[in-house]
């Protein structure tokens, strides 16, 4: 892949099709953990980290096992096995990361630990796995067609930047919500409804990037 492709993938997953604001993935943490800037940042970093790992692992799984003509099986198993395999692999991965951090990197565990179990069934992580493999957009699919290693690089790169796009949306949202907490909002709109409307306005701003890539 050349520099332009790297840039295109990054730009597209942060701005053009932002995970939260354009693709509607990962809305539960987006609404649930965005009251404070600090928590939003922690959640964003944890999701980015797990998304990167999940991208690598699920791409390997897809290219080596599930895809037609993979290493072991001669059949196309994508449709039949991708859902259970990805979910279980991601859940196991998150558990392993949590155990590793707890024993080896306690400082990092204190910062990210509480967010990790919440990520296990996060649709953003599962979504990035699907978008890197079976439902890949044009850019990533072309890279994957070129060679195995190119596909792996594109998938992990996309994983990182999708996570950063998620982090960006979380940070923007938490900034708005810290202000909203002080504001005098009509009672039925308090909490989630007004947050949704603000997210709609943010999505409108992001709509301006449509068609750039």
């Amino acid at each position, binding site marked *: 892949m050349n520099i332009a492709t790297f840039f295109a993938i990054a730009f597209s997953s942060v701005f053009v099709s932002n995970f939260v604001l354009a693709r*509607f993935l990962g809305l539960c943490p987006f609404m649930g953990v965005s009251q404070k800037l600090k928590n939003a940042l922690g959640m964003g970093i944890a999701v980015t980290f797990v998304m990167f790992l999940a991208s690598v692992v699920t791409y390997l799984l897809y290219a080596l096992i599930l895809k037609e003509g993979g290493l072991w099986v001669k059949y196309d198993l994508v449709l039949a096995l991708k*859902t259970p395999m990805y979910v279980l692999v991601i859940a196991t991965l998150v558990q392993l990361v949590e155990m590793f951090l707890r024993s080896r990197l306690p400082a990092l565990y204190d910062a990210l630990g509480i967010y990790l179990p*919440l990520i296990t069934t996060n649709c953003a992580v599962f979504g990035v796995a699907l978008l890197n493999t079976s439902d890949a957009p044009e850019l990533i699919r072309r890279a994957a067609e070129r060679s195995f290693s190119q596909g792996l690089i594109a998938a992990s790169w996309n994983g990182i930047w999708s996570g950063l796009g998620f982090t960006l949306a979380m940070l923007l949202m938490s900034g708005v919500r810290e202000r909203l907490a002080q504001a005098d909002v009509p009672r039925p709109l308090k909490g989630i409804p007004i947050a949704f409307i603000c997210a709609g306005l943010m999505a409108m701003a992001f709509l301006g990037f449509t068609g750039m890539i």
Partner: protein
Amino acid sequence: MAQRSLIKEFTKGILELNAVFVLALGLCPTLAVSTGLKNAAAMGLAVIVVLVCSNTIISLLRRFIPAEVRIPCCIVVIASFVTMIEIVFKAYMPPEINAALGIFIPLIVVNCIIMYRAESFAYKNGVVRSILDGLGVGAGFALSICVVGAVREALGAGTIWGYCWMPVSSSFEYVPASILIQAPGAFVVLGLMMAGFNWLKGRRGGASSRPGAAGPEG
């Protein structure tokens, strides 16, 4: 826990425990797939089927599943049914609906509603109750997503279920606000509808009604 009547077991999922408006669970598909009533109905159907099937199986197996591994077991059961639904939809649904649902069919597996009902209800209750619970909660979700879908389609495309709902006349023409079918419209419509739901609940109950706190996971 006092035994609820079987009818109550079904109806509680529609209003009292409404997945989208009260619990704020399953928001991702609600926003993403509600671009039109047809897509929303297909998504609602898929969720009802998966929810009823997984509730049935989990409730049948609840004596054999040790409590420590109940979550992975639930995941495997749900993932199997989601895969089945995905294959059936690929085979029998019109291609444009499949294209619109896209990755959101496999994503049902991480939909918090299904895991929540499997783990907190079906794992503790009998088969009949679990089926009714699945039907009720699924119907509540399907109704909500269909309402959101109908509003967005009616205002954003000027149609309902593909049919033009405005009388066509030369003097008046409805110009659809296409922003409502795009991403921002989804957030705004759902936000306003949640607010309306809270307002109605506040008026009916009288007591202060807090909007449902979002489940942190999923």
